[in-house]
């Protein structure tokens, strides 16, 4: 790693101030940023550790019944504390990495990073969650702007993520055997008025909504509705050692059908 100064603000306000420093970067759980810095592929003059800020940790329900998760909440906390309020999300969090990674990695870090194979973006997009920062609220539909790119401005910190809890939901993950991130994973969220389907791991543009499936499922929420569709276009799908675009496109359909089945 290149050296940097580490600051540990105890409050959000202090963190916002610390982020004003030249070339400052937020440090969530460090489970992505630190390995990247070790490879000397990222550097910062100042790292602002968010882990001591209690006000951006924890889970509650707001007046609209939305599940509000602090940006600094670890995957382990979501796995444990959302098991009843939003089981599909708890199950997603419980399958990220391994127990030690889940004890450090945070939802804010995952959404800020927007890895094209990350899990949380699928849940956020499928639920059209609201990503909250110190400055504003961003709807998930406007937040994910392509692989590793989001609507966040420099110095913006994800302080909270608000999920409208679906009537039924399921996250179906097919792992890439080396990294154990999703090779393809699909989050299906069924609301009274709509069904939303978000896909991660597949596209080189990052997480996306599979509109055809949403349309089909809105009329007929069943596995068969998915099976009747053709797989999404393989163009633009990630093609790598672990599977080409055609295979990934095929998996999108299979994972989606399985997610719907599991919702029932």
């Amino acid at each position, binding site marked *: 790693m290149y*050296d940097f100064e580490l600051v540990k603000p105890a409050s959000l306000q202090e963190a916002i101030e610390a982020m004003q420093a030249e070339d400052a970067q937020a440090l969530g759980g460090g489970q992505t940023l630190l390995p990247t810095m070790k490879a000397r*592929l990222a550097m910062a003059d100042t790292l602002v550790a968010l882990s001591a800020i209690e006000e951006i940790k924890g889970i509650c329900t707001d007046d609209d019944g939305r599940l509000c998760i602090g940006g600094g909440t670890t995957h382990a906390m979501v796995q444990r504390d959302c098991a009843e309020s939003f089981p599909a999300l708890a199950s997603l969090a419980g399958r990220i990495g391994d127990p030690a990674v889940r004890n450090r990695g945070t939802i804010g870090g995952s959404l800020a990073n927007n890895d*094209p194979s990350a899990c949380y973006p699928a849940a956020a997009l499928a639920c059209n969650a609201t990503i909250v920062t110190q400055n504003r609220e961003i709807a998930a539909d406007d937040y994910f702007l392509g692989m590793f790119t989001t609507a966040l401005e420099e110095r913006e910190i994800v302080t909270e993520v608000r999920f409208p809890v679906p009537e039924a939901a399921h996250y179906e993950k097919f792992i890439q055997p*080396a990294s154990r991130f999703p090779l393809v994973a699909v989050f299906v969220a069924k609301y009274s008025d709509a069904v939303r389907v978000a896909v991660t791991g597949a596209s080189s543009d990052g997480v996306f909504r599979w509109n055809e499936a949403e349309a089909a499922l809105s009329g007929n929420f069943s596995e068969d509705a998915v099976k009747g569709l053709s797989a999404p276009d393989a163009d633009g799908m*990630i*093609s*790598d*050692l672990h599977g080409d675009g055609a*295979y990934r496109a095929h998996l999108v359909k299979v994972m989606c059908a399985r997610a719907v089945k599991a919702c029932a």
Partner: protein
Amino acid sequence: MPKDTGIGASPKRREDVRFLTGKGRYTDDINLAGQAHVVFLRSDVAHGRITSIDTGAAEAMEGVIRVFTGEDFAEVGGIPCGWQITSIDGSVMQEPKHPVLAHGKVRHVGDPIAAVVAETRDQAKDACEAIEVEIESLPAVIDMKAAVKPGAPKVHDELAGNLCYDWGLVQENKEAVDRAISAAAHVTTLELVNNRLIANPMEPRVAVGDYTSHDDHSTLYTTSQNPHVIRLLMGAFVLGIPEHKLRVVAPDVGGGFGTKIFHYAEEAFCTFAAKALERPVKWTSSRSEAFMSDAHGRDHVTKIELALDAEHNFTALRTETYANMGAYLSTFAPSVPTWLHGTLMAGNYKTPLIYVNVKAVFTNTVPVDAYRGAGRPEATFQLERVVDKAARELGVDPVELRRKNFITEFPYATPVAVEYDTGDYHATMDKLLELIDRDGFPARRAGSEARGKLRGLGINSYIEACGIAPSHLVGQLGARAGLYESATVRVNATGGLVVMTGSHSHGQGHETSFPQVVADMIGIPEDQVEIVHGDTDKVPMGMGTYGSRSLAVGGSAIYRATEKVIAKAKKIAAHIMEASDEDIELKDGKFTVAGTDKSVAWGDVTLAAYVPHNYPLEDIEPGLEETAFYDPNNFTYPSGAYACEVEVDPETGKVEVLAFAAADDFGNVVNPMIVEGQVHGGLAQGIGQALLESCAYDADGQLLSASYMDYAMPRAHDFPMFAVDSSCRTPCTHNPLGVKGCGEAGAIGSPPSVVNAVIDALASGGHDVGHIDMPLTPARVWHAMHGGTPNQRAAQPAAHSEETTHDRSVAGAATNV
């Protein structure tokens, strides 16, 4: 009541306590006073000419002690190769120079160009980035078949081309084999790839060089499977340090699997720099660095043809293999596709005519050398796949086809230059069928089908040759070293023993199993025996641990040295009891005179050896210490039968291993617990090769699987519990313990079981897929089921893709800055 001591018992491993409490002492745990750190600048292109290196800026940086380049090693030898192969036409193999630091050209991604020695590792890393290197990129040769075409770019300008050697076994049989294949009732042909792997011991390599000027001694602490071999190779061939001025220590070593046999440039560098700077110099490999600097394994492309007569007897076998050497010849690389592979092509079968051709090829990739099994997994895989395919083509039971062709009489001289001493292939097959419950398979398959899954059962036999030796034979075959093992047994006055062995333990449990042998022979408690290994100043000589040779060869040396100790002790006992030597018996730590009630304890005799008041000084010297060099007269030939049961998800192509059974014949077993553990580990690596692991390069020679993000290491939930058995025993006839090696069998026998099982599963679903190249990833299986052949028949097990997970995550994070 199970035995709790001696040969055949499973005492708890004594080394475990230090490992379980964090007190192991691995090379990276060693920090010497005044130690500096080295970081290597490595090539990021596969092939290029170095036009300039400017180290000025780096040298001026904080903490930097010195920057070394290839020029600094002009007076020093290159990294030597320990084995020479002779081609069909009688010429010796082409042997390129292998400089410690690249000189003139870089030849693979990871080739070291310069080395920065600094006060701290981070400072050395910082300075590495300040070195200005200009490299003129040259076209890389990656595909082996393209590499040997006329006009292909040459990896080494001074060589005639990229063909290292073109070898045939047995050349005189070639025509007869060709004729038999033309005349056969049926010929089954298969083209396949044995995927390139990375050994990945969990401990990355580390080297610490030290030098003391007052006595002009160099010391190297290194993660090695064979410190004496490193002392010889590095001292004599690279640095010109005589062995008596050089000490090599390999303390606790965190796994080796072959890749820590070889002498590496980093070891020579640290030893050299420590002397040049008169400071200890330490190098610790990162995992990413290991991927591009540890020797890789396997990487064969083979065509195999099996001829059968109308009764399904195997009549002839012919193979043609391209074997990747990488950019330089690693220590034992040339022997792996030849003597460790060609000689095994008879397998368990009495095929009368066999011809093996191997073309070894230089490419712009990391050097390839022995990895667990080395050559034998490649042989077993081809043979057991082609036999399975033949059974499928002929519509006969694959087990019966094997049984019909099994060798049943021993000793058996194969048509490929080796003689099997013992074996009973029907016995291990019988045991296997019981372990895997073959009779219950149809019902299990029906159960899977009811759940929409395809179930398959793959069965195969294997034989391997290990306990590699004898010296006179390997000498004829091109080895530049002897392959004996040595042991010194020192008995102290109070009766305790210190056994200095040339074998090296890096997980095998020698500290526990070797005392079992010695204690059993003398009849004393095992805790009276201490094992010393891994230090050339403490152990007189050693060839090290690889090729499953520790117990078969190293253990036999210990046995012989202990025999000598006992013989001398009997003389002392005879003197004390005033009896004749021949009448002395040793049992339970007590010497007795046959037919009398006279006895003297072990401890009294050992004391007498060092306090020789009442002692036959006119016949023998005081003291009780003996050395033996054991040079066996043949390999040992473990064999067995393996079975794998899988379920394939037809929607995704994902393969799940539901059961794996292994019935091995290892001859006599000293510690059944350790033997089982060795088999488990081997199975995991073999199943890993079959389903998960693949070291892949793109066409430009960039390593695609450059970290655990893309190189799939098996995890706990990739496996079921294994059913392993080693109760079928035909003891080795030529070593005193009757043991055969057990360290590699699991990795040798298991890949074909997995692939056979998947092919069987797909066939049950109506997918007549002849073969799928390893690793059988979900994508490959799914494509195969749908008529596609991704990566099939490629001359290289590489994928066709530019992207990797690692690149992607890294790129992403960088843009976030």
